[in-house]
């Protein structure tokens, strides 16, 4: 691919991601409304879809306020880190044959590395706010994300073993006959759980648990900086969903429809699933979350990896 095309694609992707992030704020509220016997935003425009613009306008026109007691440079930097860390991995996602920015041969590792970066955003936001609730939220986030990162990576290694590559493009192509969720059901479930934890969504939204610590790490944020946190949460959710599609559900593959559409549909279903989980479950407690991670999911992941390796070795792929 020519560099010029790459740049154009990057810009297009960036714009699309921002739109998707904005759209998801509305989608989530409508879907939650549907599942909670209420309407959700339905006043501005058809089905309330202009609510997105109303929100953006509101957030843009708000005073860009930084608390006096905050550590200003870090306070500003934190949301930026968050957004960069969730947007960058899209560079290695294969949307459809030929529609991709780059197919790194270590694509999966690049994703894992970048997703580890988000923890900096949260931790620094919590620290720089100089607010106790934010600090507690930040600390919770660090503990949670670092713990879940461990088996997040490991849960994907089963796929890597079967595919024999870290390149996302190749992984999709290896799923011509069978999608990998059939080979790696345990890996899929664990990655889903880890993904929920990584994006800090219920039942793992401890860093921003409103009934306990107000809004957690972004308590002191308002206006556009708050919007950036919000946006990165939705982009992060899209990222995890897209990745699950690529790794477990055959990426763009599917009959009749054009590949890119298949990719979008699959991703959308997974995003809806994420939202459904939020509508359905209560929240774990800090220590229970840690226990679940280290005592439950980590051993399970290792077993899964061991079994996958043994089977692959036995069949001799």
């Amino acid at each position: 691919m020519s560099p010029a095309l790459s740049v154009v694609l990057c810009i297009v992707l960036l714009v699309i991601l921002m739109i998707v992030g904005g759209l998801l704020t509305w989608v989530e509220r409508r879907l939650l409304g549907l599942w909670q016997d209420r309407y959700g935003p339905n006043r501005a425009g058809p089905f309330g879809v202009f609510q997105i613009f109303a929100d953006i306008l509101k957030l843009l026109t708000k005073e860009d306020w930084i608390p006096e007691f905050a550590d200003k440079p870090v306070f500003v930097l934190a949301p930026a880190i968050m957004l960069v860390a969730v947007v960058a991995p899209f560079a290695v996602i294969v949307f459809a044959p030929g529609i991709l920015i780059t197919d790194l041969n270590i694509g999966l590792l690049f994703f894992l590395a970048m997703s580890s970066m988000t923890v900096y955003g949260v931790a620094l936001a919590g620290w720089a706010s100089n607010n106790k609730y934010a600090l507690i939220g930040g600390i919770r986030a660090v503990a949670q994300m670092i713990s879940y990162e461990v088996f997040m990576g490991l849960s994907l290694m089963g796929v890597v073993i079967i595919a024999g590559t870290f390149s996302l493009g190749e992984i999709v192509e290896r799923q011509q006959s069978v999608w990998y969720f059939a080979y790696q059901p345990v890996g899929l479930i664990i990655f889903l759980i880890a993904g929920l934890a990584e994006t800090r969504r219920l039942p793992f939204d401890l860093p921003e648990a409103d009934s306990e610590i107000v809004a957690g790490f972004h308590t002191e944020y308002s206006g556009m900086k708050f919007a950036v946190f919000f946006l990165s949460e939705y982009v992060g959710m899209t990222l995890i969903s897209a990745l699950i599609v690529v790794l477990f559900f055959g990426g763009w593959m599917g009959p009749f429809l054009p590949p890119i559409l298949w990719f979008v549909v699959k991703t959308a279903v997974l995003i809806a699933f994420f939202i459904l989980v939020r509508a359905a479950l209560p929240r774990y407690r800090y220590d229970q979350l840690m226990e679940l991670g280290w005592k439950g999911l980590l051993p399970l992941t290792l077993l899964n990896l061991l079994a996958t390796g043994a089977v692959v070795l036995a069949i001799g792929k």
Partner: protein
Amino acid sequence: MSEQPDIVAELKAMFGDAEINAQTTRDGMPTIWVSGPKLRDVLRYLKQETPRPYKTLHDLTAVDERERAHKAGLPPSDFTMVYHLVSYDRNEDIRVKVPLSGEHPSVPTVTDIWKSANWYEREAWDMFGVNVEGHPHMRRILMPLWWKGHPLRKDHPARATEMGVFTLPEEVAEARDEQNEFRPDEWGWERAGEDFDYMVLNFGPQHPGAHGVIRMVCQLDGQEVVDVSTEIGFHHRGAEKMGERQSWHTYIPYTDRIDYLGGLMNEVPYVQAVETLAGIQVPDRAKVIRIMMAELFRVISHLVYYGTLAQDVGALSPVFFMFSDRERAFDIVEAIAGGRMHPMWFRIGGVAQDLPKGWDTMVADFLKYMPRRLREYDKLVLKNSIFKKRTMGVGDFTIAEGQEWGATGPMLRATGIDWDLRKKRPYGGYDQFEFDVPTGKCGDIFDRAWVHVEEIRQSLRIIEQCLKNMPAGSYKADHPQATPPRKERTMHDIETLIDHFVHVSWGPAIPAGEASCTAETTKGQTTYYLTSDGSTMSYRTRIRTPSFAHIQMLPVLSRGLTVADLAAIIGSIDYVLADIDR
């Protein structure tokens, strides 16, 4: 009572005739006067030594007697401290009074006998200026720290217009802010451990998890709550003071707003206490209507509890489902009473109107609809494994602790004792109904939630019986003091017109005397202790609310747990701020 040794006789035998002066009250509750020096001995005897002891200090309050006209037969007293004790074994209460004299009276503390006395004694100081000797931490509780005077004294103005122009110069405001600052040392907190400092986390007065304006200052060691101190009073509206300037009848709307989720349920103890004072017999139809409406409000209030508790442990959806069910119940309330949350519909001697046409189909529809929804919620909340994990074994306490701290209602029943006044001392016609009293096992959050949910089912059972057996007859007592007087009896001649006019404008003059009525309301036991001086207004209206006692327990429940547990415990206590602060 007859077969048991009368407690008054027992006390007289123990302490001598001269020490124990019995008083007869309209409600028939044993009431004795003891002198200040003997007070602690008598109370300690009642709690610890007498067989079948009085384990709970249900209420502690004071009365400013200085302007009371009808004091015949009572010991001379400027202020009176009133201790209301409950014995579970006897199923009997006792009221112990202490006469105090002078402008700045003093009374010994009883906090070492009942831990729960702490807040009540602070309230007595705050409201009446009764100095409590030996109290561990005396400071104002409901009023701001800078308040001058003691509001429930008769010489304290009740209206803002009596108080002069309000000004707040900057320097005064600053001084008050400074006074408000939380000083951990005052509460006996350690500031630091050997190699670390504790974190002081200000939970409230504005906090999304606090259900209202209440301030809980937590001493944290990491995520662990080492200690909590609770500051209340942000929602104080002087409901008791208002009782002294509203007619008996016009005070009813205020009672709705004490526990603002309980609506009509709050009016039950108030109107029953007034009826006891006036000796009004309520007709059967009015009784059953009252029970039906009150139980409907129990359902309404418990649905809010259920939903918000689920929300406090992080589940987003249940609260929406339950609020929409609550709307259905409100539709019934609206059709019957006209209002929704606070219909102010009960009257002295009955209810405001007869039931409208078609009320029965509405109620029947609701009874058909609700159980199915409750089964769904079981799956959504109570059977959810994360919910169980978050709530089982968290924030538990024992029966003995509950009785020590004055816990009542579902909070106490979750520990395993079936103490429900609707069964134990059926009031207002509850003896005619079949229902069970659900009890928990260990008094943790899960048990409290479960008891609440079961109570919704039992309330539906009661409502169904009301529906099937609604008696015919009048909806209001045929008594001269039943208020408002019947319209069809007026406009015949000048006497009936005058009578109607006087009753509507001034309201009835209730005979002098004292009566209290305790009812099993949504959150626990609410007691209205009314003193009438034979006038058109109450001389003293004391409202004992369950939330006040429950929220005082908060440190006991949450020490050693995490911040997340604290949020869940707060959700499980089922308090509303208006019920705490009044």
